């Protein structure tokens, strides 16, 4: 005879150690919990609200420059170090954790326009409007940096004078070369006083240059003739060039997708391109209301940060049309440079108000050591919020951002203008023979042509 009994073996509920968590037995039969969906929806709502409550992105400002910050460079080998240069020729190394200047690199006579660090973090390269390229030896990070605030100055290791003023500089990833942008694109070696290679296509000056982190011999430049060009150093020749309607201020390669790059354009949008097919942007990232001055990809390749002339910093998803986040403060002026930290946790912005600002990449992220259970809770909240983000209540809370008045108004104007344009287009199409009026898709609209 079979007798059904309740059994509870001792092994199942006995802890091995006193620190172990007590095993809790659940019955996961959904019929026992008819309200689970409602419960999760409520949790999503709560999570969205909590995210808003905890959204405190601004960590701190670093002041010390006496002029607007023109460019920054992050040390690829050392998280806490960030270099910044200002329009008066001042270059500083900052310790991010203490937000103090570690040392200064005096020497430039005019504005410093370009700053970059070699991949091993030993050599800092700077260039500027005084037609010089300077190489500096980066001091080794020691523990004293954070405690002692002694202002030490560093002499340049090398100084190369050249024919024209420079606009930008970027270092090859894991290599000896760096590229400067000026009247033309020039490739330098650390140990040579003159460039080893020089490229010119057209007569306009090059305003930004960026090496591909995945493919160290490929680099992209943008020039003042509104073009974006891809060069290959091995073939010592350009590969592609497109002309856009407006100038591109800065370029960033996606570190996780070496064929893709995103261009920060003067028209307030960013354009993501596939390096193999430049006649059409892969994605247009709109939100800024003024020229985008600088762009930097997150090392995860999933996001990028932009700084704009409209006094705001925005974070975009790499494949999304609109920004995920906007950062602004009352005192932050035109943003000239932005950087994503090497661990994808922080964002730095340098602006006209002589300050560097440190932001969290995720506004409501909890900093510091997080216990595993806490981590799980955060993950669950995030997942639940992500799941219900399309429902109106959650969506409203998640999407809401407070905008500064000028940006808000400008957005309104832009919207009006776009609406009227669209109306006009529609009417024109309606009143002309079918097929005569062809509208280009948004992704091609701002691209004039691809030059052979």
């Amino acid at each position, binding site marked *: 005879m079979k007798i059904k009994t309740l059994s509870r073996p001792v092994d199942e509920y006995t802890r091995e150690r006193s620190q172990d968590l007590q095993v809790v037995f*659940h019955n*996961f039969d*959904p019929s026992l*919990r008819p309200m*689970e*969906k409602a*419960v*999760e*929806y409520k*949790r999503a709502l709560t999570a969205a609200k909590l995210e808003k409550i905890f959204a405190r992105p601004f960590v701190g400002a670093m002041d010390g420059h006496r002029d607007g910050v023109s460019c920054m460079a992050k040390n*690829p*080998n050392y*998280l806490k170090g960030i270099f910044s240069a200002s329009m008066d020729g001042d270059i500083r190394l900052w310790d991010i954790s203490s937000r103090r200047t570690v040392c200064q690199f005096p020497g430039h006579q005019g504005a410093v326009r370009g700053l970059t660090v070699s991949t091993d973090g030993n050599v800092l390269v700077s260039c500027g409007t005084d037609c010089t390229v300077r190489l500096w030896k980066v001091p080794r990070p020691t*523990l*004293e940096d954070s405690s002692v605030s002694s202002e030490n100055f560093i002499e340049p290791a090398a100084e190369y004078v050249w024919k024209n003023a420079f606009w930008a500089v970027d270092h090859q*990833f894991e290599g000896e070369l760096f590229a400067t942008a000026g009247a033309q694109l020039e490739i330098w070696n650390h140990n040579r006083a003159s460039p080893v290679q020089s490229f010119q*296509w057209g007569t306009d000056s090059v305003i930004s240059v960026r090496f591909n*982190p*995945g*493919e160290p011999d*490929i680099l992209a430049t943008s020039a003042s003739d509104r073009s974006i060009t*891809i060069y*290959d150093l091995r*073939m010592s*020749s*350009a*590969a*592609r060039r497109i002309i856009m309607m407006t100038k591109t201020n800065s370029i960033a390669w996606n*570190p*996780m*997708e*070496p*064929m893709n790059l995103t261009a920060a354009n003067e028209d307030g949008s960013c354009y993501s391109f596939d*390096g*193999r097919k430049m006649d059409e942007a892969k994605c247009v990232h709109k939100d800024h209301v003024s020229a985008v001055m600088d762009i930097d990809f997150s*090392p*995860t*390749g*999933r996001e990028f940060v932009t700084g704009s002339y409209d006094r705001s910093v925005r974070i975009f998803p790499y494949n999304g049309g609109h920004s995920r986040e906007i950062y602004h403060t009352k005192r932050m002026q035109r943003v000239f440079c932005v950087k994503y930290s*090497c*661990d*994808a*946790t922080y964002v730095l912005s340098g602006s006209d108000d002589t300050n560097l600002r440190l932001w969290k990449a995720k506004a409501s992220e909890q*900093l510091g050591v997080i216990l595993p259970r806490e981590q*799980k809770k955060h*993950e*669950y909240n*995030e*997942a*639940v919020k992500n*799941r*219900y983000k*399309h*429902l*109106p*209540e959650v969506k409203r809370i998640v999407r809401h951002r407070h905008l500064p008045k000028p940006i808000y108004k400008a957005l309104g104007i832009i919207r009006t203008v776009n609406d009227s344009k669209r109306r006009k287009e529609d009417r024109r199409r309606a009143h002309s023979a079918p097929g005569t009026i062809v509208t280009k898709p948004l992704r091609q609209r701002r691209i004039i042509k691809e030059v*052979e």
Partner: protein
Amino acid sequence: MVGEKRRSTSKNLAKNKKRKGPHLPNSILKTIANEKRPLNSDEEDDEIDSDDANVDLYEYEEGVPEEESRKNNRYDPVVNYDYELPEDFEDENVESDDDDEGGNSDNEEGEGDVVRHTRMLQAVTGMPSAAFDGESKRKPVLFTEAYPESEFNPTRDVLEGKGLLTIDDFMAPIEGKPGFNDLQKRISRMQKDTQAVVHAPLPKPERERLERKAVKGLVDKEFNKWVHMVKRNREAPTVYFNQNVSLGYSTVGAIASEFQPRTDFEKKMASVLNDNELGEAHDEDGAKLLELNEVSVEDHIKYRDHIAKMRSLLFRHELKSKRIKKIKSKTYHRLKGKDLKKSAMGALMDPEMAKEEAMKQEARRVEERMTLKHKNTGKWAKRMISRGLNVKYDGTRAAISEQLQINATLSRKMNSTNDGSSSDESDDEEELNDGSDQDTPSKLIAKAREKTLKTVEDDEVPNSGLLSLPFMARAMKKKNEEAIEEAKRALEEYEEWENSGGEENSKKTADVSGRRVFGATAKVEAPKESRKDSDNFYDNSDSDNDMEGIENNDLRAVRDTASPVRNTGAITETEFDDDIENPASKTTFDVALFASGSWKKMKGCQNAETKKKTKKHVPYSKSQDKKESRDEESEDSESEAEQMVDGILTSASKETYEIPSQAELIQRAFAGDDVVDEFEKEKQEVLNQEVPEPEKPVLVPGWGQWTNIQKKRGLPSWMVREHEDAKKKRTLDLKTRKDARLRHVIISEKVDKKAEKLHTTTLPFPYTSKEVFEHSMRMPIGPEFNPATIVGSLNRPEVVKKAGVIIKPLKFEEANPNEKVDDEHPRSNQKQNPKKGGKTGKGQRKGKSKQKTKA
């Protein structure tokens, strides 16, 4: 070079196409030629040559009218090239700038000249005209002239015509001279060997363009090799960036070896540790160590004093314990032991002691409650408080507060104990009350009997200890038997009492005795057998009757009626129930229903026939409940019940019972409820709720009723109008409703605002269908609803990273052939698979599957 070749081929194509074209007048042709040139020259000036001009323009087979061609005499008649190039020699024309620049050529002569020319050739050579056709047709020449003809600008005729010098002209004079043959051979070789001709370099922009084209292809190839990695990354549900974290130093030794002293203290320590002198002293003999190890006199004295103090304390303690040990008085030790036990430890050790202690405590509490000794009621305390000394002196205040404390503790505990005792008492009281409520002697007797039974049952042989020994067990058994005997006797006695006391009690005793095996009496035996018969009968009837619905109902009814009887009959129910198909619980449930008087409710479900019959039995059940006196003995009632049961069954089988039709049944079942009417009413209600009827306009009492005129006028016209409008609107609304024409349907058009919140107005972006979107939220992901093993994977974010870990850019890896087949290079992978994937079974399997798909 590649590009050049391509150009040459394109030129060929152009030449082939030349034959066709619109017949345009020559003037237009000229303008075309003029316009084309600047366009080309705009981009590359060097490129333009006669040949290009040829390419760009149309060729006309028809002749141009002479009068037109000679209109302004600018273009001289020119015989077309008679110099024919070999097939692979065309490119030479690209470089032959010098010739073309100087040469004026045109095809203005047109077809007429050509025809004449061929005729002349034919006449001279005597060959058929077909031989010269090709020559005549391949002339696509249009030359424009920048300058008028002069000796500095000779016509093409002069340059290329009959007066043109060839190598042969130069060679003719030296024919036959030594070395002529050699020279001729070399010249012919030179003419043949076109490959050795070095071409002039391409113009720079052209060259760069070609270069860029090549580079573009290479760069694309370079980018393409990343595709599989990018694809994998993008498709992965989670990307991990926290994997390759170097933790730095893993051992204490490694950390220590890297240690650098920073603070003053650390530096001091380091200076001592790394002192060479000290090291040497250690290494040698330690004699020098003494010199280094100086201790101050004060420190030494301090240390010595401390040691002496500790030692003296220890000594005193020893002395004391010795003295105590020496005391021989037993009373002293007993008292000491008691003291020890009195302490909490002692109380814990001994339950007796604890009890005693508790008693004492209780007494103290009671005393406290009675006297309130510690609640400032004492003489001393009163005096202190009245004189205000407790405020003045700290000691007094402390003493008083201490007293209050004692009071508080005592009273608090007192409450808790009081609760316990009171509840116990109440329990007892309840029990007593229970007894007194049913004060009947029968109850008391029953109770007594139960208790005896319990004692009898409880006697169990212990498994272990002294009592488990065989002789003890035997003794126990004997004792038990005696006890049982006694109990039996007692029970019998009870029975007698009952019988004498009241007939109503007899049943119960019988019942009990019937249930117990040991109490099986002759009285019970007889009905048991008869019951079994009836059981068999039940069985048969059940198996025979396959008609379920009604018949079953009947049977159940029968059983229900039988069950009380069974109770009275004192039959072991289990036996009975096993025979019946229904489980025991059900029957008992039915019994319970019956007993509680809910029988009437069940009546509705049963047929009229059974109702009639069961009604007979109702009084019995009721009588049982109310414990009314019965006129019959238990035995009699039993037998009667049995008969009745039989009677019912027999009657059921005997009577001609017609099974009603389905419709009839339904009609009967739903007799009295008008569903259609109800639904209509309901619908009307819903309509009224959703589209409410407009309120009738009412005048406020006292308003507009002052005079007769006002009264006569009644409601103001605007009110009436509004009301009418509202009515009309309502009817319109009702008509436009979705369920306006559906009589049997209510479609609610009420918008639920709370439900609105849970819907999206449009389908969100990544989803393509509503179902997919809804499915995405179907299963919960929380830890309460899922096992812990999968909660992590359900909630994992897209990007897992760790603050403080530097993320390096993507490193290139070759595509793993064992992984999924890449979309980009499926063919190459197929080739690789048998080679690389041969090691693992997975790859092989994949290869096989591919072959299958091919087949």
